């Protein structure tokens, strides 16, 4: 499973960073990246994002099956 960032949608607000329990999200002024090796796939960043920028590829697969 992997957290995905939808292209050109992130607002760089840091809400996801603030809840990530393992500090797996890096955010600069206009650049976000997920540190996949650290991520524990808890999915709370997906829920908390106010504009639904994040998703999990496992879920995407299920949706498209």
């Amino acid at each position, binding site marked *: 499973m992997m957290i995905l960032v939808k292209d050109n949608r992130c*607002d760089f*607000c*840091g*809400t*996801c*960073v*603030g*809840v*990530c*329990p393992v*500090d797996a999200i*890096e*955010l*600069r*002024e206009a650049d976000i990246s997920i540190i996949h090796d650290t991520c524990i796939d808890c999915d*709370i960043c997906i*829920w*908390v*994002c*106010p*504009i*639904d920028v994040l998703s999990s590829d496992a879920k995407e697969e299920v949706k498209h099956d």
Partner: protein
Amino acid sequence: MTDYDVIVVGGGPAGSMAAEAAAKQGAKTILLEKDRDIGYPVRCGEGVGATGLRKFIEPDPGWIATTISKVRMRSPDNTQVNFGMDDAGYVLHRRLFDYALANRASQAGAEIQTRAYVDGLILEDEYVRGVKYQYMGETRKLTANIVIAADGVESRVGRMAGLRTASKLKDMDSGYQATVGNIDVDQEMIDFYVGDNWAPGGYLWIFPKGDGMANIGLGINGIYGKDHNPHDMIHAFLRQYFPTASVLTSVCGGIPLGKTLKKITAKGIMLTGDAAHMVNPVTGGGIITGMEGGQIAGDVAGQCIQAGDYSEQAMKAYPERWHKAEGKNHEALYRIAQGIAEITDDQLNKIAHRLVKTPSENLSLLKIFTAVAREKPKMLLDVTRAFAGF
């Protein structure tokens, strides 16, 4: 020799106040802000109380959008409870306000560096001795005796020092805010919507900004974020109530509503503002509490520098002074917020029906909270505490 006495990370209200206070004590201070602009983008409702603001800065028409004297709360069935305010409120132009605070810090002698993204700490024997940061594609290092992390909701700098700063999902509001034009609202009134329809576990606000504009936003509890999207909700709200309004700016943002972190200092570092979870857990207001925390942190840092003592023991004055100033009240407010979170839409309607019978001039926030506490008696003690200030 260190490059600086104090390094402040983050140029929001907490960081600027910290930098100003430290510089005023004679500490050689620099503030590093990752964005190219202090105060922008504005991720905020921009509402503050006048008394709180005045403790730290004289209101200036340059950054005050409107002066507020009335409040309206709408229950889920849209029963409207109107009441006056004991204290005036202001809606700020935060972009200009944050500039004014940063300018004050620089006038006190602090240096300010924008486009400086702090991505590491210099650690020696578990002591924070400085920061690493990126500036225009270049990695730079600065040493200092004390680092003050005022890096907002992300609060990563504290984590780099080993502090646990992540918010629980239930303690994080997921927010979306729009500044809209062509809107006709009472310029002296702030308007709130509560309930599951528009704001599950939070509230929706309309704050007037003058000239036919308003700051309209929404914070929902992170738990509800799974099935709700604040962006879609605000746009649905605007379509329903203000179909001719146009959105001039829209941003999202997170509001940490948990209790202030147990540990807001570690060796060589202090955390303040949103980074330390200092936001009022009931209202989500964090401008004034952040300024207060920042000022105390900067002041204590300056005193440590003067005394040449940067031990954890010497920095203890910071949590102690914070606790005395806001801490107890903050904890009572956190418990009130937990009680409010359990109130159902039916109960909210019931409370509103009871309150509308009281003429608005006789209603105060205390009366409203007392009515809420009738539904949730276990809140009564905390409500009394919060209002009596003990």
